[in-house]
């Protein structure tokens, strides 16, 4: 992959994340968007459709839809179908609690729709400490419904110290379902900032994870672990921070951020209620800056620089690490450089009762 092809930005994002809502019936302790309550002033259905229209004009190929729990929006199905009719593929992320038989039938019958169900452990005792009592069972039920219908979904798992020894079990689970496994890096974003040091991997685990990913090339990572590419043969993917270059995020109220992991004012490029998305993408000062910027400092002298390009900006930001410094989990750092704790974890709230969204048609 040619880094320079991507570093200067593209005519439209490749990885556009749309956090449709902050409403959620779970309270995962590591939620990157600190979701739970619906934000006042969410884009309404018409505004959302106009945004989709603009993405279609820009030839955005697909959007990653998340939240919160996107299925809590009453217009969820309507908007997904609208996007697909306008040539935009959908990859949506869900906790699975709202996938009943009818929703599963809709998923299976809808073309160009990918689904990833979140699960952060291969057993309830590991998963539910992070995602809430009963969340494991509900996610598995959703997976059972999709698998019964022959639908190839993804299991998305944030890799934590608690669940690290279950990677093989998660892999087997996905294989038994005929599903794909996708692993995501835990970043100290949102609520995860409070639990990062208790849940992040040790450096030894990071090295093991790299080897495990090399042994399991079919496991997806969404470029989450590109900081580990410095260990040797680069992992598949862009291996760079794509913020503002190939990646951006639109939040429920239309704020556009450089990355879904840094939903903070410093990385906000604009709002679609004030400017068009295209104007923000092409001309916002923040994105123009990011396309000219590279991680400097000691990283540029590192022989592994071309493999990781200095690591993840979000992890640096929330650990108050200067952006020109190495990633806080740089593979060349030792655990003594890190602050690993075993604090008691907060207890996530139980699943809130949620009325199922209206399925159109």
């Amino acid at each position, binding site marked *: 992959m*040619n880094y320079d092809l991507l570093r200067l930005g593209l005519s439209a994002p*490749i990885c556009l994340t749309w956090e449709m809502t902050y409403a959620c019936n779970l309270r995962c302790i590591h939620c990157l968007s600190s979701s739970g309550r619906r934000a006042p002033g969410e884009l309404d259905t018409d505004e959302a459709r106009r945004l989709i229209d603009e993405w279609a004009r820009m030839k955005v190929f697909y959007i990653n839809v998340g939240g919160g729990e996107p299925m809590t929006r009453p217009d969820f199905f309507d908007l997904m179908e609208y996007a697909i009719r306008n040539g935009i593929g959908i990859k949506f992320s869900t906790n699975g609690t709202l996938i009943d038989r009818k929703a599963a039938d809709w998923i299976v019958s809808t073309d160009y729709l990918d689904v990833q169900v979140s699960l952060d452990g291969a057993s309830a005792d590991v998963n539910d400490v992070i995602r809430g009592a009963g969340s494991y069972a509900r996610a598995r039920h959703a997976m059972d419904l999709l698998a019964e219908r022959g639908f190839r979904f993804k299991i998305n798992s944030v890799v934590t110290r608690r669940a690290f020894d279950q990677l093989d079990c998660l892999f087997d689970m996905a294989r038994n379902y005929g599903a794909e496994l996708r692993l995501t890096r835990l970043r100290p974003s949102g609520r995860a900032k409070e639990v990062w040091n208790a849940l992040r991997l040790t450096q030894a685990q990071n090295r093991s994870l790299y080897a495990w990913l090399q042994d399991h090339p079919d496991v997806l990572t969404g470029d989450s672990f590109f900081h580990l590419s410095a260990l040797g043969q680069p992992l598949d993917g862009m291996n760079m921070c794509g913020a503002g270059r190939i990646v951006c995020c639109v939040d429920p109220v239309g704020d556009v951020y450089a990355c879904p992991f840094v939903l903070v004012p410093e990385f906000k490029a604009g709002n679609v209620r004030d400017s068009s998305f295209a104007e923000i993408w092409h001309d916002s000062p923040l994105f123009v800056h990011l396309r000219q910027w590279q991680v400097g400092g000691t990283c540029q002298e590192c022989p592994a620089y071309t493999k990781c390009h200095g690591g993840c900006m979000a992890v640096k930001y929330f650990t108050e690490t200067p952006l020109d410094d190495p990633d806080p989990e740089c593979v060349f750092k030792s655990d003594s450089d890190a602050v690993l704790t075993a604090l008691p974890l907060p207890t996530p709230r139980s699943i809130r009762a949620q009325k199922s969204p209206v399925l159109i048609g």
Partner: protein
Amino acid sequence: MDRDSRIRLSTTASLRREAFGALVYSYKDRRLLFIDQRLLPYLTSDGTRTVGEIADSLAAEGNIPGSRLEKTMALLEGLRRKGVLDEL
């Protein structure tokens, strides 16, 4: 695929021009491809001209040497096998 082949972008693919050429996305298998600008005249063809006619026209304009045709055909065949191009 040969000089007389007529090709067109598949209806299950989408092409977006970029500074380096284009990005092509295959909705069928979710594959994203980076396309060099030298292949653009072929991928944006509406199928009315053959591959050979496109190549000859590029060579006449000095935009691409005729000697590249064999390599270009191999690339186009690869894209056809990936489902990105349809041979008409």
